[in-house]
């Protein structure tokens, strides 16, 4: 039986959270741009424990590589009012040709942005904290 937090939610540990992350391909990246939080949906894949995403030279890169970021993935079921969410905090770094081994590795990951646009930059979220919560399905009856 998993541990519960004070709201009765099951606490997902790092391993359980990573397993859930591995099963999805769209998450939400939060960065602070100036003094404003931004939330951007992104396609991603995992490189070990790191989250790999692609970007053009837009807001993710401008705001994200200078400061800590937060990444969130969830899956909720309206009909049973159950689901889970995983939150990762860490630092976003650009993978450059100076780290050829990493660049080569991330290039082979299935990170396929659904949107068009020149997503020439490969970003890697190096995680600090990884954790999640699960709202269990209510018992039947």
């Amino acid at each position, binding site marked *: 039986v998993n541990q519960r937090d004070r*709201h009765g*939610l099951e606490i997902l540990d790092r391993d359980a959270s990573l397993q859930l992350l591995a099963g999805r391909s769209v998450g*939400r990246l939060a960065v602070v741009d100036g003094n404003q*939080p931004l*939330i951007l949906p992104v396609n991603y894949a995992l490189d070990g424990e790191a989250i790999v995403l692609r970007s053009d030279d837009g807001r993710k890169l401008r705001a994200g590589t200078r400061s800590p970021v*937060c990444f969130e993935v*969830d899956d*909720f079921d309206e009909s049973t009012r159950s689901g889970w969410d995983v939150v990762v905090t860490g630092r976003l770094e650009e993978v450059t040709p100076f780290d050829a081994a990493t660049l080569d590795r991330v290039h082979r990951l299935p990170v396929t942005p659904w*949107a068009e646009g020149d997503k020439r930059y490969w970003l890697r979220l190096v995680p600090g904290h990884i954790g999640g919560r699960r709202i269990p399905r209510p018992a039947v009856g």
Partner: protein
Amino acid sequence: MTNAEATVEVDRNGLEVLGREEALDLLARSTIGRIGVHVGALPIVLPVNFLLFDDVIVVRTSAGTKLAAATQHAVVAFEVDDFDALAHSGWSVVVTGVARAVTDPEELAHCRSLPLTDWATGHAPHYIVISTEIVTGRRLPSPLLRGRRIT
């Protein structure tokens, strides 16, 4: 091409730009959103139950949480989306607005009367409202509709 199609604005990533009305309509039909706040320089995103009432986002959370503390008259981001992993399509709406805690007894009574449940807890509810002056939205049509293959 119809007039409706001709007026769809597309951003540099090929995403359709949603107008305010359409974005608010999508918010009105959703029940779970993600609120983004920053604690110091660290952004935090958390899923929350919400409801759109009179063009204002009403979020229900629990008293005494980090979220409750971080949303006192702070600028927050609020995001709702729906993506189809098979079709590679979907939409997202992001609101940037000032959040405040509901403390006025009359407003609190009104919030309690809304059909807004918190899936997570039966704890004492705490309501946060977020104004929707700044609403942006994007839609990603399926590649099949854009004459592209899904890879």
